């Protein structure tokens, strides 16, 4: 195992609060190539605290690519350059000594900036609460095997269900659209027989909520699929549109 370290120049978005103007600030950091991207920021922050400066605020939790907390635009790409990878699992070996890295928050008016690189993604929660569920009270379920679902169908629904709600799709979309997020949940529930009774109300309500939140329209750039840590296909968006049309007939 090599003990390589690299020196990096960072341009990090600093913003004191939601209504304050922010700017990119320059920093330097030295880091092992085995460290993760967020560990690199930890090291930077330790350094800043020791100097008496305010650390860079960024969102993180599980650091294994499943909680969806981390949300950094690295060199202009949501979650950075590695495909199917949340930025918490991006490692520094993908960067070169002396490289400059620009780090920005998710940018969308539906995701207002809280501080530095932290944004408010509660719009996603409101989209789910508008209909991203199956109305079944606890205790009223029938035996699990009384609903037969073929393996292929179950796997297909699972592919859409893997969404981690990170918001990279919105961040990367040139229009800041939340169609992949919304479409994935609609598609998961539309594919499963359990989701059938509410499918019409669900798609109308969720699509409407998506608009109310102020996300942009989808122009089919497909950028969302490219940055999605779970690689969710934009066929989810096509399915959402089919569901939407069908819901009026």
């Amino acid at each position, binding site marked *: 195992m090599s003990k390589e370290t690299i020196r990096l120049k960072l341009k990090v978005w600093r913003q004191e609060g939601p209504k304050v103007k922010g700017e990119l600030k320059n920093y330097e950091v030295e880091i092992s190539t085995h460290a993760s991207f967020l560990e690199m920021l930890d090291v930077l922050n330790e350094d800043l605290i020791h100097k008496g400066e305010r650390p860079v605020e960024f969102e993180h939790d599980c650091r294994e690519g499943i*909680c969806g907390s981390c949300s950094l635009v690295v060199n202009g790409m949501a979650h950075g350059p590695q495909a199917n990878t949340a930025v918490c699992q991006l490692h520094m070996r993908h960067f070169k000594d002396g490289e400059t890295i620009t780090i920005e928050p998710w940018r969308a008016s539906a995701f207002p900036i809280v501080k530095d690189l932290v944004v408010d993604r509660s719009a996603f929660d409101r989209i789910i609460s508008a209909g991203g569920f199956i109305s079944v009270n606890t205790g009223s379920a029938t035996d699990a095997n009384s609903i037969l679902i073929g393996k292929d169908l179950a796997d297909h629904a*699972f592919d859409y269900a893997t969404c981690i709600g990170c918001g990279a799709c919105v961040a990367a979309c040139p229009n800041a659209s939340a169609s992949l997020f919304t479409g994935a949940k609609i598609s998961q529930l539309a594919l499963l027989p359990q989701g059938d009774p509410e499918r019409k109300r669900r798609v109308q309500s969720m699509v409407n909520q998506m608009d109310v939140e102020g996300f942009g329209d989808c122009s089919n750039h497909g950028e969302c699929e490219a940055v999605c840590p779970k690689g969710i296909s934009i066929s989810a968006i096509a399915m959402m549109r089919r569901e939407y049309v069908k819901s009026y007939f």
Partner: protein
Amino acid sequence: MSINFKTVENSSRLDAKAPSGPLESKWKNHKKDVKLVSPANKRKHTIIVVGTGLAGASAAATLAELGYNVKALTIHDSPRRAHSIAAQGGINAAKNYQNDGDTIHRLFYDTIKGGDYRAREANVHRLAEESVNIIDQAVAQGVPFGREYGGVLSNRSFGGAQVSRTFYAKGQTGQQLLLGAYSAMMRMVDAGKIELLTRREMLDLVTVDGVARGVVARNLETGEIEKYAGSAVLLCTGGYGNVYYLSTNAKNSNVTAAWRAHKKGAFFGNPCYVQIHPTCIPQSGDYQSKLTLMSESLRNDGRVWVPKKEGDTRKPVQIPEDERDYFLERKYPSFGNLVPRDVASRNAKYACDEGRGVGATGKAVYLDFADSIKRLGQKTIEDRYGNLFEMYERITGDNPYETPMRIYPAVHYTMGGLWVDYNLMTTVPGCFALGEANFSDHGANRLGASALMQGLADGYFVIPYTLGDYIANNSLKPVSTDHDAFKASVVEQEERINKLLNINGNKTTLEFHRELGAVVWDNIGMSRTKEGLEEAIVKIRAIKEEFWTNLKLTGEKNTFNKYLEFAGRVADFIELAELMAMDAWHRNESCGGHFREEYQTPDGEALRNDDEFAYAAAWEFAGEGKEYTMHKENLVFENVKLSQRSYK
């Protein structure tokens, strides 16, 4: 060395309230006997649910469906971020869909035995009973479990069981179950029955006349200290694995809510019971912030070894066969690489302690797939473990098809937690603890695929009954947040935060946390000794002393300030660590996740002492600087025969 505490045998403060009667009918009878709250009255009660993981989200959703007003607090920006989301393997349920002889009793028995006979029989049996309902509920919510071509649900087998009873959704079972509970919860948010309070960290349990009536929480965006009053408080705040600094827990997982409740009178049960998972990706440097779990299934086809020679720095492929020590196969010929988690973990530690560890830090052992690839072909290995190999390569940069994986044990789950009775109520009336936050169901060791089961059983199927009984039996008068108890608490919390910010020393929160973690890992980790624990207590006290005089924090309190949050949590971890050491020190036996080197069989296995230690230790906080009191709840086993584990 002075480790002093009072002991109360057969404590009257610990009324487990387990119903009488035969084991199989305890829960049924209890459900029949609990008092009900009418719909019109439910509307009058506010229930505060802290934490929105499996336990919290399922409890919040279910209570709201029943008609209670729920206030749900989470430290995250969304309930869906809770660390339940990261559980990979699966969830057990005694459905017997495979017709392989599974029954509720077998699941009960496996769980009790797996917990090394340190759990309460009645609770575990209830868990096994409710396990089947969880699967039904989850499927109805649209959780996409793995299925067979014919459309029925698929099962896999998991450690510690002879039947296939584990339901799974690829390697993301926790995620899918949490999203199911989350969706149920968001439905109730939409219905106006749940007030969702994101980015709120509970800092104090507020009691009025000795009864839990609310919480005080910090708004993590504005820094404001807020007050929430209700008829009961449910702590669903997970485990305390992050006391070790490095663990598989998420960075924000913490003990603060449980610890603050503990200091308000909730006894802490069995804090020394910690589970260490043998197959994690090892630490690569000081900057390391967390450890990543790799599924245990890897041990089915991987062979664990270290070089025979100390300090051998050759590349693994250059080390000839006869210079390798396949220590698990050597010591445990019949189970080999498939010995239980604790045995595998301990032996890896021993190999590294002998100086035979591998990798840059010397804190790792090899998990080698070369033989399996030769025997089964790369394709088969890829089918079985492709995604895990990919994840390993993403993190380490090494290709496990070509060079052996490096693995090391890591803290993964904490069996200890707030002591609760059969109704999941802590020793503070009106304060309940659910899921990993309580101590109840796993004894000294948790079996795989049981954590999800417990969190959801508590939230969906237990608390709705037992909470109703509490509400119906106590005529709770409304309490306003203007009550003096709330005001005093707010002042106290504001002072504490100011204190943290004003120390202005030289060491950062992370430095303290790392230092604490190293002490806890070395001394209250995989294997423990009397001396080591005594040494740990001395060191922990010194860390505490230094923390409050030399902490350096920057930034302000009236804004988002993650390091301020961390500082408050580390302060609590330091206090917890001392209690863990004390608990481990007093328990002069080895059981489950608690291995005391002095107490082992000649074969090196955990040696229980059922005569003296078949009890749950519930620790009562008496006040700062005062002696702890340890209350014993004797565990009575009427339905299982206590036996020694052997994997030779």
